[in-house]
């Protein structure tokens, strides 16, 4: 028998590790499964919240962009309508670029009283310059200018998005009863907005009307809600902006692209809450690991004691426990990221509803980021969980 006092050779760690870990896994699968499930749930929640958070904000941004179109300056009276005469006063500004009046309102179909549509009343011909939309007629045929001209004089015409029409089985030509300012009015669906530009904004909860029709329907005859300009020259726009600010100090003069930033600021508190929530879920996962490892250490005090008498060092024991929890964490976190991606759409709905209730209508477009962040999440999750192992080990 070789009794050579061994030269400082390190243990056959691989063999020992697999033997112990697999044997424990075999003999007490419940602890492993519970731990992995705990980690997976915590990470899944975090990933789902983050994914849907980003998706909500991204498509919210897109909506704002689509609705603003090319307009790069706008004037509105904070929340109220203003007299149409303002348009005449500002007619001169047409020299610098396009000037587009807008009436805005909200309505819901009588059959779906909670599903509000944001209605933009615009000059349909001119507005095609500013905003990106296509109008489709029966059987999705693109409407020509002649078609539009024919439809225009109708005082009760409305254009819904294709997405909305499909979801509510609405056909072109159909008459629909809407609740507008607590009254029921019947509007005719003159056409559908194709699935691009404005037709994609706000998750389809948007309608276009001719400005005159909108004024009538929303009881805003002789009134406007907003003026949009498209000013090609930057210098012109800046001059106009400061002129308007001097002339109309009580009005809101802004660049539509800024509107997104403002709302985002508004939403940042909400975002922070979600982030905190997702961190809590990860901490819960970490606590589960801590707990599981504490149990493992307690249950293995004897085992560890025996291994110590056989010459395993304290450091090697810690390494062993870390390796085991790394394995648990890795499996749990990978499962969690996959599960989180599955859960994201449901969370997105909840977040969308909440934002809608709290702030303003927001699209529920499912545009989830890909799993490119996954590696980062996995690293993050595994690190947190390893940190939770060190105290018990």
């Amino acid at each position, binding site marked *: 028998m070789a*009794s050579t006092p*061994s030269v400082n050779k390190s243990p*056959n760690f691989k063999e020992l590790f697999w033997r112990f870990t697999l044997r*424990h896994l075999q003999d007490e699968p419940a602890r492993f499964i519970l731990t992995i499930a705990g980690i997976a749930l915590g990470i899944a929640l975090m990933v789902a919240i983050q994914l849907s958070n980003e998706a909500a904000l991204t498509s919210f941004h897109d909506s704002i962009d689509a609705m603003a179109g090319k307009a790069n300056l706008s004037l509105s009276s904070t929340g109220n309508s203003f007299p149409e005469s303002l348009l005449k006063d500002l007619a001169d500004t047409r020299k610098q670029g396009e000037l587009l009046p807008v009436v805005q309102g909200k309505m819901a179909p009588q059959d779906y009283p909670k599903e509000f549509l944001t209605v933009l009343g615009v000059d349909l011909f001119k507005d095609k310059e500013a905003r990106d939309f296509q109008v489709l007629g029966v059987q999705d045929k693109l409407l020509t200018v002649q078609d539009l001209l024919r439809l225009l004089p109708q005082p009760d015409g409305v254009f819904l998005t294709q997405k909305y029409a499909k979801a509510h089985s609405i056909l072109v030509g159909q008459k629909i009863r809407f609740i507008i300012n607590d009254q029921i009015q019947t509007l005719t669906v003159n056409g559908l907005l194709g699935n691009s530009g404005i037709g994609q904004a706000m998750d389809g909860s948007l309608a276009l009307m001719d400005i005159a029709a909108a004024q009538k329907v929303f009881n805003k005859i002789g009134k406007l809600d907003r003026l949009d300009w498209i000013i090609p020259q930057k210098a012109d726009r800046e001059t106009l902006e400061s002129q308007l600010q001097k002339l109309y100090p009580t009005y809101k003069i802004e660049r539509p692209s800024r509107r997104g930033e403002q709302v985002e600021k508004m939403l940042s508190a909400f975002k922070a809450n979600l982030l905190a929530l997702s961190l809590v879920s990860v901490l819960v996962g970490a606590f589960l690991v801590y707990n599981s490892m504490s149990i493992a250490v307690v249950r293995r005090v004897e085992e560890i004691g025996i291994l110590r008498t056989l010459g395993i060092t304290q450091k090697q024991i810690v390494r062993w426990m870390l390796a085991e929890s790394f394995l648990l964490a890795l499996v749990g976190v990978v499962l969690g990221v996959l599960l989180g991606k599955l859960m994201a759409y449901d969370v997105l709905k909840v977040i969308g509803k909440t934002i809608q209730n709290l702030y303003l209508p927001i699209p529920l477009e499912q545009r989830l980021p890909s799993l490119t962040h996954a590696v980062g999440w996995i690293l993050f999750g595994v690190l947190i969980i390893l940190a939770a192992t060190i105290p018990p080990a």
Partner: protein
Amino acid sequence: MALLLDVKNLSKIYPAGSENVQAVKGVNFHVEEGQITSVMGPSGCGKSTLLHLLGGMQSPTAGEIWLSGKALHGQNDEALSQYRQSTIGFVFQFFHLLPHLDAVENTELPLLIQGLSASDARDKARDVLDRVGLGTKEKRRPSQLSGGEQQRVAIARALVHGPKLLLADEPTGNLDMATGKAILDLIRKVSNQQNCAVLMATHSREASEWGDMVIMMRDGQVHGIYPVRK
């Protein structure tokens, strides 16, 4: 015979509340290579503590331990672990086998800890299991073995890596008379084969007379060291 173990003025004090427990008080003795020595004394006299000190599982409060001319006192965990890996074998009253591993897996643990490959370790472990008479039961887990058989596995594990000193703490304390006697004979046979010294703690007079020397302990002190008359 060459000197293996030299213990000088060894003391261990356990801090226990306001009054400290002095478990080992100024103990002196030595053990030759391959010598079989019993440490005899009533329960609580400090036998286990002494064995733990010699195995580097605890650090002495005072005194010196020399093994083959190397100091054990004042060493760090790394060095003491290395020492246990290479030089020491342990056998306990309650066997202390790992319940999740079978007989041969338990036996080869010290070799894997030393860094041997799985197949080399398996070959050596089988050899030793054969020598303790358990060759046919290598696939059984501890719960499927009798007390005597478990202790045989423990002896195989304690000797598989060729230690110079086997520390046995009441190895027959949990066995009936006949089985206990067989275990003692086995320890003597196998340790003689590889020239391994044995230090066995026991509170039974019969058991103590099985070795070459007896160290009498009481209240943490050595009261006398006698050769066993054969």
